[in-house]
Structure formats: C-alpha cells, structure tokens
C-alpha cells in the first residue's frame, strides 16, 4: 500500500519541483482573481464587524455616559438585566410576537394573492401593480398614514367607513374602533402586514410561475381535484419559496424600528428590541445595557439566520448546478 501511494505521489512531486516560477505565477493569478473582491470585503469588515466587536466589549461594561466615573467592568450583569428587567423582557417577547405574526399573516395572504394572480384575467398586470404599491411607500410615511389617516379614532378612514355603512342601514350609532390605544400591537401588526404582504406575494408568485406545468396538467388529466393538486403538487413546490419569503421577511421585521417608533412610540407594550435599545442608549444613556441587548438581538437573529442561510443555500445550489 505504502509503495503504491509513494509511486503515485512521486510524479506529481517531481513535476512541481522545477516549476517554482509556475507556482508563484499561479499565486499571483489567484491574487489577481481576489483583488476585485478586496475593497468590498475590507470595507464591510471595517464598518460592520468591527463595531460589533466593540458592542460585544461594551456589553460587559457598566457604562452610563451621564456618570462616566462609574464606568467599570461588569461581567454578565448587563445580560442578567436584559433577561430579568420586565421592560426588556417584554421587548424580547414583543419582538418575537411581532415578527412571527407579521411573517405568518403576510405569508398566508400573500399565498392567496399569488394563487389568484397566477391565473389569467383582465387587467392582471394593473392588479399586480396596485398590489405592489404598499411595499413602495416609504415605511415612515406608511406608518404616519396608518396612524393619522386610517386608524385615527375620530376622523380615520376605517371609522369613517363604519359610520358611513351604518348610516346606510339606519340610524344606530356605528361602532368605532380605536386600535391605537386599545390594541396598539394590532395596529402595528396591521400596518406591517399591509407593507409586507406584497413582498411575500412577489416571491410566491415567482415560485408558482417556475412550477413545472407538465406535472400539473398530467394530474389534471388524471382527474385530480384542484385541492389535491394544490396540496400535493403546488404546496411542496412552494415550500422553499415560503421558507425563503418567511425568513427574509423575518430578518427585516425583527429589525423594524419605523412602525413602532411612529405608530405607538413604543407605548403600551409595543416596544420591540430595536426600539428599546434605541431608548436605552439614546435617552437613558445606558451604553452597557444597550449593547448587551444588541448582542441578544444578534444571537436571536443568528438562530433565525441559520435557517435562512440553509434555505437560500439550497435554492442557490440548485441554481449553481443548473
């Protein structure tokens, strides 16, 4: 065995020896290939990785900029506070609730819309354009519109329409909603679902349109019911698109700041972690605590992201294999 491997490796070994030139040329070539990549890589490491390392360090420090003389190493104290402080614990819970509910609801509505738009009908292009519009309103502007023009209890459109409909059917006073003060979490979820459903719809529609139609037609010819086709052909095919939409959506919604900031200013239990962190360092000046909370968000995101990366990777591999 040993002689055999030695004999095989020898020709390669001897061939490589005289060509040190070739080797260094190869190395130069590899660097020439890498060169275009370097500016982007170096820039990103400097601007994103380095600050996070600093965050990590600050998270172990007791640092309030209002009393700088008390700055000291704090060990895990900040992390204990993040996980035990009722406000911050509430923020963790709110972040999870907000992300999960927005992603799930907008995925379900997006799936319904994608299935409808997959069929041919008059004005399909225009309907698709109308459906994309919510995604193309600046998030702060969208949140302001929801707060003042739609959900406002006295003159918002939703209550206005309720009054109008009730007045058509008699004189009984119409029920009036006040989501912003009675169910603020629902107001935030509602506005975010409205903004994110178009994204889910676009991803799922692309998935539907990449579906191999011959199997669907064959199943139809075999008398499969529409529900059967959906359940056994469409849904399995859409699975990775559902995952992709859900996980990309989750990565953005976990970080949401605009809607919470504008709609409720974090009041009444709607402060998610990004908002709470903003408050902690911007107004309370608790740098150590804010950093620890930031690290907690990163850990949470890494958990979600591992799944996201796996999904993106499977689609990516399929494309690379093509």
């Amino acid at each position: 065995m040993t002689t055999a491997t030695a004999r095989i490796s020898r020709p390669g070994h001897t061939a490589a020896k005289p060509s040190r030139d070739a080797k260094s040329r190869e190395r130069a070539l590899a660097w020439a290939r890498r060169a275009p990549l370097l500016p982007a890589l170096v820039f990103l490491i400097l601007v994103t990785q380095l600050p996070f390392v600093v965050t990590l360090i600050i998270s172990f420090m007791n640092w309030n900029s209002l009393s700088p003389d008390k700055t000291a190493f704090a060990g895990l104290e900040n992390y204990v506070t993040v996980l035990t402080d009722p406000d911050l614990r509430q923020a963790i819970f709110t972040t999870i609730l907000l992300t999960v509910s927005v992603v799930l609801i907008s995925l379900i509505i997006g799936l319904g819309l994608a299935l409808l738009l997959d069929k041919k009908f008059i004005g399909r292009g225009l309907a698709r354009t109308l459906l994309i519009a919510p995604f193309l309103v600046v998030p702060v502007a969208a949140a302001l519109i929801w707060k003042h023009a739609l959900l406002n209890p006295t003159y918002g459109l939703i209550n206005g329409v309720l009054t109008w409909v009730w007045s058509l059917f008699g004189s009984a006073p119409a029920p009036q909603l006040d989501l912003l003060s009675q169910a603020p979490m629902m107001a935030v979820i509602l506005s975010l679902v409205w903004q994110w459903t178009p994204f889910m719809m676009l991803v799922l529609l692309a998935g539907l349109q990449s579906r191999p139609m011959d199997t669907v037609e064959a199943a139809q010819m075999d008398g499969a019911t529409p529900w059967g086709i959906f359940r056994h052909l469409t849904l399995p095919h859409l699975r990775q698109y559902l995952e992709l939409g859900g996980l990309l959506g989750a990565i953005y919604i976990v970080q949401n700041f605009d809607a919470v900031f504008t709609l409720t200013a974090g009041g009444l239990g709607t402060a998610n972690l990004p908002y709470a962190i903003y408050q902690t360092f911007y107004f309370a000046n608790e740098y150590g605590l804010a950093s620890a909370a930031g690290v907690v968000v990163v850990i949470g995101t890494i958990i979600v992201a591992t799944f996201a990366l796996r999904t993106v990777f499977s689609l990516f591999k399929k494309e690379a294999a093509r």
Partner: protein
Amino acid sequence: MSTLTPDAPQSTPPGPTALNTGSRKRGKSRMDPTRNNTAAGIAAWLLALLFAVPVLWMVLTSFHSETDAATNPPSIAANLTLDAYREFFGETSGVSPWPSLINSATASILSTVLVLLLAFPAAYALSIRPVKKWTDVMFFFLSTKMMPVVAAILPLYLFARAVGALDNIWFLILMYTSMNLPIAVWMMRSFLAEVPEEMLEAAQIDGANLLLILRKIIAPVAMPGIAATALICFIFSWNELLLARVLTGVVAGTAPVFLTGFVSGQGLFLAQVCAAAVVISLPVLFAGFAAQDKLVQGLSLGAVK
C-alpha cells in the same frame, strides 16, 4: 390513446395514474375553466383595491383641504386643492422640507454609486472569474446583513461623535453603503451569472481585452439587473430611518427624519401629513415601478427568478 402525449404518463405521480386511467378525457375539459378565472379575477381585483386603498386615500386626502380631510364619515367628493402641498413646502410655517429632501437624495444617490463601485468588482470575482471558495465569501457577505443595525449603532454613534462626524451626510453615506453592499453583491452576482459562459470563452480566445468584454458581452446581459440593483439600493437608503435619526440632526437630517418631526399635533394637519407622505414616497414609487421586472430577483437576493 394516440391523442395522449407520450411523456405525460411518465411525469405523473404513479398513484393517480393507476387509479384514474379511465377519466383522462373528462379531466381535460377542466383544464381551462374560463369561469373560474373570472371569479379569480374579481377576487384578485377586490383584494388589490383593498390593498391599494390606503395609498389611494393618502393621495386623495393630500389634495383635500384640512377641514375636508378630517371628517367622519369621510368626504370623498370634496373639492380638490393644492393647499396641503403649499403648507408642506412651508408656505406659512417657513420651514422648508427641501434641505431634508436634498440630504436624502444626496445620501441615497451617492451611497448607491459607492455600492455599485464596490459591488461590481466583487460580484465579478464571485461569478465571471470566481475565486476559490467563492460560496463561502458569498455567505460571509450575507451574514453581515443578518446583523441588525441596532447591534452596531452605539459604537458607530460613539465613533462619529469622537471624530466629529455626527450630523455629517458623508458618515451617513458610508453607513448606507455598508448597509446595502451585501445585498448588492448578491443581486449583482445573480445577474452576472446569467452572462453565458460560451460567449466569455469565445471572446477570450479571440483575445478581447477586459474592457471590451465588459462593454460588449457583460453589459448587454447584466445591465437591466445592475440597474435594478441600483434602484433597490436607492430605495433602501431613501427609506432608512434609525441610522439617520441617531447619526444626523439639523444639518444632515434626511426626509424620513423630517417626516417624524413634522407631526407635532398643531391643529388640523391630516392633509399635510398625506401630502408629505406622497412627496417623500414618490421617488420610491418611481424607482420601484421602474425595477418592477427585476424586483423579486433582487429582493430575494437572486434566489428567485
């Protein structure tokens, strides 16, 4: 039997084929049920209108007077006026939104240019002439995007304060560049990967230089994708609020920051808010509809075609 296409049974799952061999002909009539499509069309249109109502209402209200805007039930057919836009542009208050709009445009456009300058060579080294382990590099880029902004914002804020870069538009431009760079690399790689390999090889054999290859072979195929990447980066920068709010102030404040400070609850302001929202969303609406064809591929980072 001869009417059946020969490959149809092969692609059918084995179960149903065995069970329903008799009903093939009848099943075929179900294939284009036009009535079903009408129902789907009506449902789709109703839902599309429902989703568009907030946008349409925003536009309509922006053309109403403040008193007509704040009625219950809503006054849909009220007279149209440009008063709200005049107010938004500071006719009575004297506070002009123009500096913030210009800041937003500067930050979005310049950061997009920087992103393209950095991302194009990187995407080239990840697709056309890929480095070894290029997939690992791709996932490193993506992983930086998964880190929430809040996890890095404090050091960035402290750094900016230490070097006197707070309320400086250039610092914001650098932040937006790093925010969009990973996505742009992914999008561009997916668009550059569509350049046919045979054409690249043929050009290299013919001795074409890099510039010629870029211009004659890569640009025609990848240009729409690069344009879409630029538009999407522009949108993300234009929309951004958290970084702008923390890192800028009076001088370098962007339009979203202006918008959050705009509502101070002085009397009736609903039409003004709508006018402001319309003005600030217009660039995004234009950019988004211009990129519509490539929007999905870009936003899904090239995973979806």
